[in-house]
Structure formats: C-alpha cells, structure tokens
C-alpha cells in the first residue's frame, strides 16, 4: 500500500475522539488481564504461547485483538472464556478471578456452533435455561435485536452463514454477559456479508450495554470496529502495542476507509504485523527448485 506523504500520525486524535477516550477510561473496568502467560509442553521442551499479556477493557468498550497467525489470539480469548487454562498471571472479571467457563462471558465462535436440533428461538433460550431463567418472549426480543424474529421457528440448517452468526450473537447476549468475546466470528463469511455484519454488530453494540472483545486478522475490520486495538506478535505471543483508534464515531466504512485517520492507523498496523523483511532467509532461493520448475528440461542432473 502506498503511504501518502501527508498522512498524519495515528497517534493524533481530534478533540472529540480524545474526549471520548477520556470518558471511556473513567468508566469501570470490566475485564482485566494481568501478566497472563501460557506455556504448554511439547516434545522439544516448553513452548510459550502467551507471555506477559496486560490490558484492561472498560465498560461498553470495543476492543479488537489482532496479530499474525500463531500469535495466540485464539488461545487468549479461549483463556478468557475459561475454555483453556493459563500458567501464570491473572484474569479478572469485575475484579474477581475467572475460573472456568461461565455465563458472565458470552462467546461467539468462528465456526457455526448453533445447536442444530434446536430452533433458532430455543437456541437463544438455551443459555438462560441453563441458569433457570428465560422465557420465549425474551428470546424473541433478542432475535428482534439481530433482525431475525421472523426466523424464530427455523432450524439452523435453514439459515445462511451470516444469519447463523447473528443468532449466535443473540444467543450469547441472551445470557446478559458482562463481556462478549468474539473469536473471528465473521471469518467464514464472504466479504459482502462480512461488511454488513460489521455494521450490524456496531449497531447492536451501540444500543445495548455490552463490552466486546473481538479477535480478527483483518486490519480494516479491526479499525472499523474497535475503540482500541491490541496488537500481538508471535513467538512468543506478546502485546506489541495497544492502539487507540483515532477514527471518530459513528463509523461508516464507505465514508471513512480513505480518511487520514483510517489510513494512518492501517499503515501503523501493517508496520506492526508485517514488518519490512530484513532477514536474509526470506530471500534465499534454493537453486534446485528453479531447475525443477523448468519445463522440457533434460534430467541428466538427477543424483
């Protein structure tokens, strides 16, 4: 991507944006991750998947986690959800340590995880029912929120991918969690649907009291959605930078994706995630590979 010479720093924030971040940081802390680390044993000794991760999310904040593949983003969110253990540090939800999975942290997965034997409505009711609450009318309200009340009695296999993920969001929200964890929820969708889903998610987030932690590998998705972006690096998974997105809200992708703030943030993210190669190993080309690629060559050099 050509970087315009006039691009401002991504650190420059307009007054409105700065004021917003100040308000945001004064809000209560919902999730706090302190010195979080995870190691797992392997035949070649212990591998560090995550090392010394620290961050906080405030109430009604939208945080995206981004990083190259293998940086442990999924491991991180699975630890937060309580689906995986960690080896050091602390995860605090409302100041209390997290032990195992629970309804106070909703999760939307990348794959489709609706229960295929339940109708859309009963899928949404599943969480509240596990905790002995919840009525059908409440479920319908949540479906209404994601625009799918017409499909309340449909089965998941009758829905498109985007609709399935919207039901999954409604299902996670129906438990009224403190935080919504989303693990690349739109990763399996086509570009067009994904775009609509992003706008839709922002709309939902704006209208209810929910804090969102969203994992993605799509830079533009992260900038479009997030208040702050947690950039991880791989081997070991560490926090590289916590970027405050200077793009003002309300967000509109078509109007903003060429704005100076958007491009500056994107340039910074690209710099962090795909740093310019200085290593020689990347340019090293094995000569025998070239020979194999030649068509109609004699094969006299076979050893």
């Amino acid at each position, binding site marked *: 991507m050509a970087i315009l010479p006039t691009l401002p720093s991504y650190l420059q924030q307009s007054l409105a944006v700065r004021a917003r971040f100040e308000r945001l940081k004064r809000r209560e802390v919902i999730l706090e991750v302190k010195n979080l680390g995870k190691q797992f044993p392997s035949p070649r000794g212990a591998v560090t998947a995550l090392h010394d991760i620290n961050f906080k999310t405030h109430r009604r904040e939208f945080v995206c986690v981004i990083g190259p593949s293998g940086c442990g983003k999924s491991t991180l969110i699975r630890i937060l*959800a*309580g*689906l995986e253990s960690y080896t050091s540090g602390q995860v605090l939800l409302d100041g209390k340590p997290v032990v*195992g*999975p*629970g*309804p106070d*942290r*909703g*999760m939307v*997965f990348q*794959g489709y*995880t609706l*229960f*295929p*034997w*339940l*109708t859309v409505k009963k899928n949404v009711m*599943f*969480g509240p029912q*596990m*905790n002995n609450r919840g009525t059908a009318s*409440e479920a319908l*309200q*949540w479906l*209404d*929120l*994601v*625009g*799918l009340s*017409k*499909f309340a009695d449909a*089965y*998941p*296999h009758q829905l*498109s*991918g*985007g*609709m399935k993920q919207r039901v*999954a969001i409604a*299902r*996670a*929200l129906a*438990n*009224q969690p403190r935080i919504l*964890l989303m693990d690349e929820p739109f990763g399996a969708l086509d570009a067009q*649907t994904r775009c*609509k889903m992003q706008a*839709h998610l922002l*709309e*939902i987030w*704006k*209208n*209810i*009291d*929910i804090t969102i932690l969203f994992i993605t590998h799509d830079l533009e998705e992260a900038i479009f959605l997030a208040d702050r972006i947690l950039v991880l690096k791989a081997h070991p998974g560490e926090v590289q930078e916590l970027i405050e997105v200077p793009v003002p809200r309300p967000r509109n992708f078509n109007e903003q994706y060429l704005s100076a703030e958007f491009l500056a943030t994107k340039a910074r993210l690209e710099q962090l995630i795909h740093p310019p190669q200085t290593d020689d190993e990347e340019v090293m080309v094995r000569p025998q590979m070239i020979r194999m690629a030649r068509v109609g060559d004699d094969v006299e050099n076979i050893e």
Partner: protein
Amino acid sequence: MSALQQSSKARLEPFEESAVVEKPKSTWGSWFAVRKELPPHGKWTLTIGSFLLPLLLWCALSYVPFIWHPMMRITAPGSVDYFAQNMLVEKSVFNDETANARAQGKALPQGIPANPIYLPAPHQVAKAFYTAFTTAPERRDGQWLHQSLWHSIQIIFWGFVISSLVGVPLGILCGTYTVISRLQEPFIEFFRYLPAPAFGALAVAILGIYDGPKIAIIVIGTFFQQVLVIANTTRKLDIALLEAALTLGAKKLQLLFRVVVPGILPDLYRDQRILLGWAWTYLIVAELIGTSSGITWFITQQARYKNFENVYAAIMIIGIIGLVTDLVLAGVGKWLFRWERSPNKA
C-alpha cells in the same frame, strides 16, 4: 432486560442470501457423475433394478434349459427298473441308461432337463410363500410359518432391547467421559472378539433350554459392538458445540443431557438400525441352541423333508422383514430428525 430497553433502534431487516439450486439434468453423463445425486426417476429405476437383476438371473437358471440344468427329471422310466416317475437323476447316469436300453433294444426312459432339488424355480418359491401361510402344518404339534416367525421376532426384540438398555447408556458415557472409557473399553474390545455362539453351551447351562439362552446369544453378539460403536459416535460430536454450551453456562449433567444426547441422537439412531441388522445375523445360531425354535426350526425341518422352496421362502421372509423394518425405521428417523442438515443421510 435492561440491556434491551434501547434496542428498538437496532432492529435491522434480515438480509437473506439466496442460494441458486441447480436443476439436475437427466442425461446419461449425469448418471456417472462422481458422488452426485441421481435424478429421482433414475433412483427408483436403479432400486428396482437392483432386485430385478438377481431375480432375472434366477429365472434364467430356472426356466432356460440349456443354461444349467445338470439333472434329468424322469417322465417315463422305460425299461430302467430303478427309475421312477418324477425322479431326479444326474444327466450322465440318464445318458448311460439310455444308451444301455438302446443297445439292448428295450424301451427308452424319457426325461426332461431339470435343476437340482436345492434350486427351486421362482414360481415354486412364490407358491411356497403362499401355501406356507395358508396350509396347516403337517404335524399336529407343528407350527405355522407365521408362528415361527413371530417367535423369532420376539427373540430378536428382547435380545436387542436388553442389549440396548445397558449398551446405549454405557456407550454414551464412554464417549463422554474418558474415565469410563478407559475403565470399560479395553475389556469390551477384548470381549467382542469372542464369538457369541461359543457361549451357547454355557448359556444353556445357566438359562435352560428355551428362550433364555437364545436371547443371551443375541445380547452377547450385539452388546459389545454396540458400546464401542455408540462410544465412537458420541466422540464424533463436534467439540465446539460442547464449548459453546459451556460458555452459555451449562453444567456437567446439563452438558450430557442437553447437548451430548440430543446432539448424537440421529447418529445413534442410525447406529441402532445397523446394530438391529447385526442382531438378526445372530438369530439362526441363537435358535439352534437348546431346543431349536422359531424360523430356524421351520427352516431345518423343511430342509429335512427337502421342501427347499419352503426353505427359500423362509429365508426370503427374514430378508423382507429386515428390509421393511429398516425402511420403516429410516422413515421414522427422517421424521424425528427433521432438523438435520443433509437430506441424503437416510
């Protein structure tokens, strides 16, 4: 629902992504497309054909004299003293005797080519089918075919029910909890290699000579496979569904009864259908144990009197019962598990 109060603004119209369904073309090329659905009429033609082909072969063998017919049925004994009307003799014997008679200038025996007694023609079996249900048994204490059949069906039913009552829950537990799996499966894995009929004598010693040991053989033959098959099916349930349930607040037993059991139900049902077929294969051996009974008694009895058309009829009835049961169960399954994605999983 405080979080929902401001939600009215967030209502969005659903956006549906329509899928274009391609209409299958019924050219010959499409019949041999790899792993593709057949056009509906082709499906039925082939289904009927799969039954018609063996039937045609059987008809050809039975009614076209020059294809096989290794015997001669005597129509007139002529001068051969040990020939009798309707007697079956080998062709070579018949030819020798004819040559003999011709050399001695005596009356020639007459005969027509015929198949051995153990291969009756389709129409004979069809007739046996009919008469088996309409004529009283020859011996007074003998059983009607439908009585024998009913007895066999009861044996199968109880064997399968007893096996399932323990096997299905145990299989699900093995597939869900590693502890139970490690505690049970190695032994079951060993036991399933022991041939069920080997326990026949033991079963008779313990359970007497009537229905007890027969049911026991069916149970032994089914149970161990059942546990392993169902444990495997349970393990195939997508772990993501369990994780989703966990994040929604499901606890241990809820996880088992609200996620694992409903999630595997269609596959469990399919397994049970296959296992029921399995149970039938143990039936004949089971019924030979102790006092012979049921359809097996009928078959062995008829074979003793060389009424092979009855034997064929009885064997076919087992097949028909099996097939019809399975079709009915498949239909019920389709109705029960309407929520299932793939329409071609029968």
